[in-house]
């Protein structure tokens, strides 16, 4: 691994980063736009607005962990960069972990940077059911996808970064008659360290922390790091400022007040955004409703060959062939030893024995486009509470998806498959054994789901009774208040959402910069 002289998150313009942990006095300032959240949505919007000549302040709750400080320890990474130290869960019949980044760059720092354009069938659905056709269609989004792919070097995983686990997956999918491909990711010079989840150590992954955030700062934007936004202040029906709290030097809270002359853009994620809007006085009946996600379940396989589960791009191969039929996406996933240890079944001597074949292990995942909807609200103590139950139909598809993945593993040459499902043998030794998965109950408590893709809690639409923002991303209730993250997506996608989130945000910010604060279909 060759470290460059300086990573893009170093040598930032003087005074462009204001750290809440070092604040000694209350801070107040005025900008054209204040953007809440520095993840995929916030960073892109800030960059577009700064490039248009506007003054921009970004506010981020988490710290800025620099590339040079990314370590291998998953435990450290969870503590520093993940919301609730990686323990946030959705509540329902089963507790499903919800993994979110909480640092400059948001989840883009800890995901695999997978780029999928919004599927056309999804856009058609949004047009038909939510009236977004004229505002949010493929034609409107195309220039933004083009620009993002150019800026962030979206490309298929290279030969050098394609791991053995990915080659095995491509072989298994082929044997099963499924179309599969190398994942398209935002990266420049990925060396396949398999460390996307704890922060890319070479800045090859084009997370927002090494791309749009530093680029926005270079254009004059300022970022306030380590400040939690309490509310957007609304006066006369218009968003006028943002009030936040920093921990302050010595642990004493320091207030931050940022006045917004032209608008406030909320990009705090589908979990945090609805509660921030509630704290700001919004009362839309759709707020916090219609939460959707993509629960995922990983299985492990043991091969003759040394696959080195963590070698290669973290997620180097995928299949979306079944997205519109079974509603699942299949993909590889490199797990660092700590995370693999969780997925390896059993405890005691059985677990130790299984550790012995770690280098022959690979993990693949099934990601479900769940049709069920949940809610986000504020629980006791102001905690964000997500409630979600996959439907019975979702669970039946999940069972079929995992069974398919297990069969693919055997077809790719696995000696054993460890499905990690309650009530199913811990070790499957033949493709015939997969029938145990077919026969398992369609019950979320039998799975070890994890969810990372979150949508819909401030959804977009024409009707203020059923949606929170209009097609111009502006709140139906408050002028000058825009929501630009995946909260506004009326439905989930069935593919990784980062590209769509960035394109939607870029579209919103471009329209704002052009002065088109109300969408005009004729324009």
């Amino acid at each position: 691994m060759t470290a460059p002289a300086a990573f893009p998150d170093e040598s930032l313009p003087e005074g462009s980063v204001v750290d809440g942990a070092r604040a000694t006095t209350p801070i107040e300032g005025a900008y054209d736009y204040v953007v809440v959240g520095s993840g995929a949505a916030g960073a892109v919007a800030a960059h577009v607005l700064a490039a248009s000549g506007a003054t921009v302040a970004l506010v981020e709750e988490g710290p800025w962990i620099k590339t040079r400080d990314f370590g291998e320890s998953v435990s450290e990474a969870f503590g520093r960069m993940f919301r609730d130290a990686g323990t946030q869960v959705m509540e329902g019949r089963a507790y499903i972990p919800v993994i979110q980044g909480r640092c400059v760059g948001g989840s883009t720092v800890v995901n695999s940077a997978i780029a999928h354009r919004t599927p056309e069938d999804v856009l058609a659905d949004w047009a038909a059911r939510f009236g977004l056709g004229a505002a949010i269609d493929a034609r409107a989004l195309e220039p933004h996808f083009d620009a993002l792919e150019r800026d962030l070097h979206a490309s298929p995983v290279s030969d050098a970064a394609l791991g053995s686990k990915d080659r095995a997956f491509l072989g298994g999918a082929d044997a099963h008659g499924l179309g599969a491909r190398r994942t398209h990711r935002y990266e420049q010079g990925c060396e396949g360290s398999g460390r996307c989840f704890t922060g890319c150590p070479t800045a090859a992954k084009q997370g927002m922390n090494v791309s749009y955030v530093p680029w926005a700062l270079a254009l004059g934007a300022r970022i306030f790091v380590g400040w939690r936004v309490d509310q957007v202040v609304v006066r006369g029906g218009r968003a006028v400022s943002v009030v936040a709290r920093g921990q302050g030097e010595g642990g004493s809270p320091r207030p931050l007040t940022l006045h917004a002359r032209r608008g406030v853009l909320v990009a705090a994620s589908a979990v945090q955004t609805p509660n921030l809007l509630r704290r700001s006085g919004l009362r839309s009946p759709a707020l916090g409703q219609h939460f959707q996600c993509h629960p995922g379940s990983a299985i492990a396989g043991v091969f003759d060959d040394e696959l080195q589960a963590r070698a290669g791009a973290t997620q180097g191969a995928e299949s979306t062939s079944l997205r519109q039929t079974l509603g699942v996406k299949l993909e590889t996933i490199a797990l660092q030893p700590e995370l693999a240890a969780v997925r390896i079944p059993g405890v005691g001597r059985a677990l130790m024995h299984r550790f012995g074949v770690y280098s022959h292990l690979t993990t693949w995942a099934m990601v479900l486009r769940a049709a069920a909807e949940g809610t986000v609200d504020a629980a006791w103590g102001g905690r964000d509470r997500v409630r979600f139950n996959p439907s019975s139909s979702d669970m039946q598809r999940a069972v079929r998806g995992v069974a398919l993945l297990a069969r693919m593993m055997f077809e790719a040459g696995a000696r054993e498959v460890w499905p990690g499902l309650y009530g199913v043998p811990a070790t499957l030794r033949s493709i015939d054994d997969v029938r145990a998965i077919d026969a398992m109950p369609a019950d979320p408590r039998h799975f070890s789901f994890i969810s990372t893709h979150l949508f819909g809690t401030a959804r977009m639409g024409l009707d203020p009774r059923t949606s929170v923002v209009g097609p111009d991303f502006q709140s139906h209730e408050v002028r000058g208040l825009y929501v630009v993250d995946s909260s506004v997506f009326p439905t989930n996608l069935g593919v990784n959402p980062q590209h769509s989130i960035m394109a939607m945000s870029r579209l919103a910010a471009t329209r704002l910069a052009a002065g088109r604060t109300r969408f005009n279909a004729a324009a």
Partner: protein
Amino acid sequence: MKLSAFENAWAGAALGAMFPGSGDVGLCGIAAMDVAGFLRQMMQRLPFRAALGLRAAVWIAALAPLFELGRATTIARLKPSDRERLVVLLIKSRLYVVRSLITMLKTFGALLYAGDASVRARLTAPSPRHGLVPLRLKRAGRT
């Protein structure tokens, strides 16, 4: 929130049974690591509810000999083979809340155990062939 000395002893016993180490595989046990220090750090870092969940998991493991083995004692007083039998039963429990909390405990143990430099080095080193499971069938679709 922090664990008391006896809760640390219970947690150490449960995690020691989950990650006992193996001479055959060349892995040390988690008992050789600073389990109490790691848990102290976790309890400080975790939000209240997660810390409460971790504490509940420790108590379930501690008192499980009574409802799983019919023995009025704690996990820390069991001999190692019984501790292992106990955690195997707990992680397969029919009660979702029990198995999910014990899985949570295993997760924290895994963060410490597999994060250890010597364990990490062993796991990521090329595996000796004898470590492989025996082949039980011909590869499907291949001759």
